[in-house]
């Protein structure tokens, strides 16, 4: 009986040790993965920052104004004027096109044979 107890407790110790080490390695793997992701995020952020800066640079007001002037013939862009504000009721609704009613395919709603 005592021998059995010893065997079981030894097995329990082995099992617990295995579990503990297993968890430890899992944690370390998760941390390594998280760090790799953080690095990736940081690189992506850096790239995003670069692209944002470039976007802002390409959209700087001076450049847009020069572009609008250069392409005035084809686009005719001018600064926004007060009179360009409109009201919703100034906008004409497109005429509503009504499909003509057609009776090519009549359907019987009452069945004479039901009587």
């Amino acid at each position, binding site marked *: 009986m005592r021998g059995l107890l010893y065997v079981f407790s030894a097995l329990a110790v082995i099992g617990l040790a295995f579990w503990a080490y297993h968890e430890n390695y899992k944690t370390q793997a998760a941390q390594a993965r998280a760090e790799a992701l*953080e690095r990736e995020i940081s690189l992506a952020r850096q790239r995003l920052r670069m692209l944002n800066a470039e976007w802002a640079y390409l959209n700087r007001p001076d450049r847009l104004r020069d572009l609008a002037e250069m392409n005035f013939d084809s686009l005719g862009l001018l600064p926004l004027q007060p009179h360009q504000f409109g009201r919703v009721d100034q906008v004409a609704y497109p005429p509503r096109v009504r499909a003509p009613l057609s009776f090519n395919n009549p359907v019987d709603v009452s069945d004479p044979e039901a009587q």
Partner: protein
Amino acid sequence: MIRTPLRPLARILKARESGGNPDAIERENIRRRHEEMHDRDRRRAERRLLVMGAMFFCAFAVIGTRMGVLASSPPPAPRASAKGAEILAQRATITDRRGRILASNFDTHSLYAKPRRMIEPRRAARELAKIFPDLDAARLQRSFTGNSSFAWVRKTISPEQKQAVHDIGEPGLRFGRREMRLYPNGAVAAHVLGGAGFGLEAVAGAEVLGIAGIESYFDDRLRNPARGHEPLVLSLDLSVQAATERVLSGGMRLLNAKGAAAVMMDAHTGEVISLVSLPDFDPNDRPDPPTGEDAKAGESPLFNRAVQGRYELGSTFKIFAVAQALELGLVTPETMIDTTGPIRKDGFRIRDFKDYGPRLSVEKVIVKSSNLGTARIAADIGIERQKDFLRQLGFFDATGLELIEAAGAKPLLPPRWNELSTMTIAYGHGLSASPLHLAAGYAAIANGGRKVIPTLLRTRAPQEGTRIMSEDTARQSWRMLRGVVADPEGTATMGDVSGYFVAGKTGTAEKIKPGGGYYEDRIIATFASIFPAHDPRYVLVVTLDEPVETSGSEPRRTAGWTAVPVAREIIRRTAPLLGLRPEIEPPRLADIRRTSD
């Protein structure tokens, strides 16, 4: 293995024949066999001991090495989570109110030299001078052939330049990674942003430090790594700012002005929508401050006229005196004021621009801009009450705007505030303040009488400042200011923009001579406006330094001919950008009052 028998027959027979004891032979053989067994056992034991010893040695060696490694390497800090790998060691972005980037960080490279590693220092110096025209080949050569082991060549280089330096093929030229501050919009909002430079520099990187403007004011906030990913959102609107700069610089050129400033403020939140000072500069390549004997800080492009420039702002101050008189109940808009002149006091003469007749109503005093009428109203108010009122409006302190330059720009007050000062300050002489101070003062009127502190940060809620005047007084002031623009007799008739109901007050102030007295032909022209007049939302102050309008037969310098048309154009261009829809002005409901409260 052949076992030797214990009693070999041959020997036993021989022993029996010779009368010996065969048992002795057996014992002898047993003894021998035991000795053999003994020897074998000992050898085996020795081998086992050796193996055991080797194993123990290996185990101890492993443990010992591990202990050595642990002892010599820095201990890793225990961590609860995997957060905090250094992601952002950079400076936060600055954006305008709609999230458009005003300043951002940018990865770049620095160029340095290790002269000891150079193969052809002379050729390298020549080639570098070709790539960077501002570098001097002879100086580079001296630093490359001298004793030093290290020399900076450029703090930042572009990718094209980097490739060109690579192509020289000189192993002694090295690149270091670093970040630099980029202002993608160039000179737009240059005075607000200020600029940035490098602090501590190393090969692996450099500190980016704000050196002026908001970059310097919020340096700690921008460099705080915990908030590095969070942009600093300003109240500026990039498109409004750019349009204002464009119109103002056009106006400045047309009117031959030396400089110009404009401030546009939201009257309720105190947000500064645009802040322009001309001439300006490119913050990406901030010029050096002027040095030398005849350098005037006030003429440098770095000087922020809207915030640092303190000018006598002239008749724009009249509305403050009149508003206070209304608030104190001394006058109503219809009260007739004596405008006979000139007033002589302490050897000083107060005159009007031209004779407006013996009497004007208070409203007409503002509309026609009568110095005499305002001076008489101010004399009724008195010194102490006027001081208190102007202090409440913020004309005694710095504005509190979030710029490093704003803290030093306190208005210049008269050394002795006597009765004459009271009269002259009422029409804007004797007290010098920045255009921003004036905008804050007008914002208090436009905000229905509550104080507004200008801010450059995006704020969503209106400011609930202390009440300086009643809402009725503020309303009456709007109406009088509207008269300046809308009344055919007003001084700013050119200022109206149909649909936006501009109200405002002109100010034409002669500049002070350095030795004392005033210049005849050098003036500061100011137009302080609020719009729309029936429900003010924005305040715009435009100041021109020494403008001249030369389309007529003689040069015209008054604000009505200079600052007002510029302000009008700014409002016409920017109001739609602010989303203000042009409206039809509600009729003047002069006699309708709320009675329920």
